[in-house]
């Protein structure tokens, strides 16, 4: 006791100019800053965050990481991201509390199972662990699951993805901030970007509420607010901002080792290391910047959970919250830059997949910002794919075949 608390990062003086300015102090922005410094020696970087780091989606997601997406462009990126976590834990010397719970998606119809067959085939082709399970095998993984014909939509099978799991999201933000700060990155909290100044059509700097910062490179990593940052340089994004709601129950004895989800019931749940049931998925489909929860969500979530797991009847919920998601039409991100406006980079449109992909997209975006040319991995994620009608096929996941849509 009495040991002096060592700060992991501290306030830095706001300089008049930086080599790169990153708007948004979440997982993506901090990861990009960290990898700019680590891989490219670019330490003259500022991360500017209007609130405090991890205030937005980085601190509001439900911490699930997985790589069982559908399209051949997405899976390699997420798979590499999944393999990066253990490396980061060592490198940052920070316990991100990775729990390899595996990920079980349930199907309740032939359409749902067919969607899973597509996803499993893609995953196996890409050498990502994923397999189809019968209802009985699902019950072996999740013993309290009701696989009888009692629920409105009985379980018909499942897709099991063993490499998936959960982390502690705050620790990811803090660990990356610690790593970036140790390499000389300036983290400015409570600093709002007001405008991006262009000269001869190129990025010249960022106007903030504490003065002008001149810089040749700006990264938009503002999550739910990315359309507004993008509007500062006159680029309209194909994003609509809606909220995702989640909640946790009272702590219970350990009974659920595997994260399970159901697209058709529109619910996912896992038991945190503290024993709470973390559950969510409800999205009200109209754009909003409020982070209010709704009674409709609580009722829906309780119904869906009790249908799938009757033993949870009577469990009390403790906390609920909501976060902003920047949804694109094809459920795939926009990783682009140096194209419409030289010097302006975008790492946005992650919707509700932003957390699992944070460090890996930060690493590729850092390379992109140094080279000025997109790495091969990011080429499919260009903004121009929408006008060229080259959507990524992510929307064909089982989640989108359900009675609710």
């Amino acid at each position: 006791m009495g040991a002096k608390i060592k700060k992991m990062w501290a306030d830095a003086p706001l300089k008049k100019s930086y080599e790169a300015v990153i708007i948004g102090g979440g997982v993506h922005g901090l990861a990009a800053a960290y990898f700019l410094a680590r891989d490219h020696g670019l330490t003259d970087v500022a991360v500017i965050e209007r609130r405090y780091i991890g205030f937005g989606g980085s601190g509001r997601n439900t911490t699930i990481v997985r790589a069982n997406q559908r399209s051949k462009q997405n899976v390699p990126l997420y798979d590499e991201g999944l393999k990066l976590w253990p490396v980061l834990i060592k490198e940052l010397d920070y316990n991100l509390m990775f729990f390899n719970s595996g990920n079980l998606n349930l199907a309740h119809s032939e359409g749902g199972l067919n969607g899973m067959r597509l996803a499993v085939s893609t995953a196996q082709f890409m050498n990502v662990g994923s397999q189809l399970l019968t209802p009985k095998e699902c019950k072996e993984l999740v013993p309290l699951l009701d696989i009888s014909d009692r629920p409105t939509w009985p379980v018909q099978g499942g897709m099991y993805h063993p490499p998936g799991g959960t982390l502690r999201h705050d620790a990811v933000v803090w660990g990356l901030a610690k790593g970036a700060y140790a390499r000389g990155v300036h983290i400015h909290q409570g600093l709002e970007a007001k405008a991006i100044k262009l000269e001869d059509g190129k990025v010249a700097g960022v106007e903030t509420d504490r003065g002008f910062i001149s810089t040749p490179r700006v990264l938009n990593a503002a999550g739910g607010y990315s359309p507004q940052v993008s509007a500062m340089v006159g680029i309209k994004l194909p994003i609509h901002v809606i909220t995702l709601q989640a909640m946790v129950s009272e702590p219970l004895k350990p009974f659920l080792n595997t994260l399970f989800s159901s697209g058709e019931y529109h619910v996912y749940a896992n038991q945190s290391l503290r024993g709470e049931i973390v559950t969510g998925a409800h999205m009200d489909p109209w754009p909003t910047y409020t982070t209010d929860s709704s009674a409709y969500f609580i009722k829906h979530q309780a119904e869906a959970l009790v249908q799938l797991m009757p033993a949870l009847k009577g469990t009390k919920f403790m906390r609920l919250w909501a976060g902003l998601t920047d949804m694109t039409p094809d459920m795939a991100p926009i990783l682009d830059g140096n194209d419409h406006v030289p010097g302006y980079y975008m790492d946005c449109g992650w919707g509700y997949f932003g957390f699992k992909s944070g460090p890996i997209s930060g690493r590729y975006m850092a390379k992109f910002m140094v080279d000025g040319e997109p790495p091969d991995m990011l080429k499919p994620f260009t903004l121009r794919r929408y006008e060229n009608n080259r959507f990524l096929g992510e929307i064909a996941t089982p989640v989108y075949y359900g009675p609710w849509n």
Partner: protein
Amino acid sequence: MSFTITCPICGKRNIYEFRFGGEDRGPRPFKNEANPEEWYDYIHARSNPAGVQPEMWFHRDGCGVWFAIERDTTTNQEVEKEGGDS
């Protein structure tokens, strides 16, 4: 965050009776001859204001009418129409 939307026929009703129909950007600005950028701008690009947005709604679980209102996306409150005409 439950709130109400005013249907021109049924009056103020619970939000969950309605389907959101997108930002109201008026009539299509071109006929069929448009280049990919114009199509992109019309179909996908959104302004996402944090503030008052004109938008379309559909009274799905009600009278089935499509209509336009203005709503503040930071408070989810409808903007009252002056005089009640339009």
